[in-house]
């Protein structure tokens, strides 16, 4: 017999330890650097007038009251507005793309087309915003072209339209990816049956295609909304002072000239709660397959 009783018992020791060896290191890491910090943010948001490292002040909701002052509330509402418009733009621009790639494009090109469409998603978001700066700034590419054509120049840089362009550009691939995975599973026989029964293409689309794609649409809308509401880079680099958002305010409360960690934490807690709400909706209404993206 190759195995002595001793090695057998050490083996079972190892076997008993194995689940812990596999699951504890990563679990501990996530607990220490994701769960605990997030809980700390909630705790800190209840401590007014906090300075770094000073956690003993009595709790109150003062930081949250600061958020509901009109000037801050306006910034939060603007962030939500920008995110909603971005999401709608992504849906309108992205749906025909996903529809064409999933249902009309030649089968063997589908994966390649999708990969090519989402590839820019993996490039640096800073550099993508920078590219839009060089297009949209007053002496940029767009205005140079407009001037050569003797057309009036556009001044969108550091304005809301620039932010919307940058954000839509950033998040369109997410929308297309998720809509594609939903449309690809569409039961084509239903489309054909509806057409055979004489339904005009518009009715087929509205009554057969859209209802089947609805979970995918919900997943895409929620994911783009979450990304948009937390986006710092596009509003910061393309927006100028006029398009202050919650994410920019949050950044400033920690790394800006006049830090206020308590109010920053309250703002962050609010952001996390908003995102959690969206995630709950995502799990409830969203396409289950889309969640793996």
């Amino acid at each position: 017999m190759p195995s002595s009783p001793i090695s057998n018992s050490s083996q079972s020791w190892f076997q008993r330890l194995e689940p812990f060896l596999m699951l504890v290191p990563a679990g501990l890491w996530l607990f220490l650097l994701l769960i605990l910090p997030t809980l700390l943010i909630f705790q800190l948001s209840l401590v007014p007038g906090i300075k770094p490292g000073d956690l003993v002040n009595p709790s109150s909701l003062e930081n949250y009251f600061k958020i509901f002052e009109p000037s801050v509330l306006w910034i939060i509402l603007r962030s939500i507005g920008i995110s909603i418009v971005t999401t709608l733009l992504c849906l309108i621009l992205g749906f025909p793309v996903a529809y064409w790639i999933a249902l009309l494009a030649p089968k063997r090109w589908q994966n390649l087309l999708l990969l090519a469409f989402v590839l820019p998603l993996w490039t640096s978001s800073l550099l993508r915003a920078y590219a839009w700066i060089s297009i949209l700034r007053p002496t940029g590419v767009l205005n140079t072209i407009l001037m050569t054509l003797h057309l009036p120049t556009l001044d969108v840089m550091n304005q809301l339209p620039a932010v919307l362009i940058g954000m839509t550009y950033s998040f369109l691939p997410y929308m297309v990816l998720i809509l594609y995975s939903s449309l690809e599973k569409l039961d084509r026989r239903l489309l054909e049956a509806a057409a055979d029964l004489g339904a005009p293409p518009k009715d087929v689309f509205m009554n057969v295609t859209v209802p089947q794609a609805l979970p995918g649409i919900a997943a895409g809308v929620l994911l783009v909304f979450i990304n948009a509401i937390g986006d710092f880079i596009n509003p910061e680099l393309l927006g100028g002072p006029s398009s202050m958002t919650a994410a920019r305010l949050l950044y400033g409360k920690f790394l800006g000239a006049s830090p206020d960690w308590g109010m920053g934490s309250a703002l962050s807690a609010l952001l996390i709660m908003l995102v959690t709400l969206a995630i709950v909706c995502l799990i409830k209404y969203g396409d289950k397959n889309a969640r793996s993206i």
Partner: protein
Amino acid sequence: MVISKANLSPRSNIITKPLWQAWWTLLMFGFMYLPIAVLAFYSFNESALSAQWTGFSFKWYYRFFHDERILESLSDSLKVALGSVTIAALFGTLMAVGLARYRFWGRDVYQNTVYLPLIIPDISIAVATLVFLAAITLPLSLATIIASHVVFCLAYVSLAVSTRINSLDSHLEEAAQDLGATPFESFRLVLLPQLYPAIISGCLLAFVCSMDDFLIASFTAGGGINTLPMEIYSRIRTNLTPDLNALSVVLIAASGLVVLLAEFIRRQSEAKRSRSLV
């Protein structure tokens, strides 16, 4: 016959005729690649300031490869990315295998927590990590960036590995154990070789994300540490030089190639598997 003809025409209307979607898709491809094309175009422009074309030149590329600050920040970024991806590769693979093997209380919560960094905004993670590090009075350094990057790198690695495990034949491992292999041997000799493509493609994606991260790094970096995205950010804020165009082209091409490589490795292993099944 007339009826069947009438039946056929609307069908072809729906599946093949409306081609405006194809044109629209082409337009959107243009939208996705236009900014990148603009950067590439102007990176070869002689002139520094205007958007006008004044002649072809490689000087911006030459400048970028001789820019000390850029090269130093590139080396900081590489240290962070390699460090965090290595840790995530090890722990992420173990975790994905563990989650596939064992059923325990809280397993679903564990699994979903791993993927959270892919969904929640970077800025929330960045802020929370900073507050935590301040609370335990850990001085910020290169190590704190690595530690916080591991959090999202774990998500990419374990997502790739879990997807792969689900598509594998678990009987192979059982067969190995029936033939006398210990669970560890069957893991090392049977499961792990089948997981390598997924581990590598997950690591490549995590690497790209770590190299691109601006927010988390700028909240967790100690003094004197300057990652490449932090350097790029400060250059965009202060002065817009075509230096940045050349740098962008190189970086965008590099991330694109790495992601394509990751996708290629993943596809190859899937194709091999389906061939061996036939």
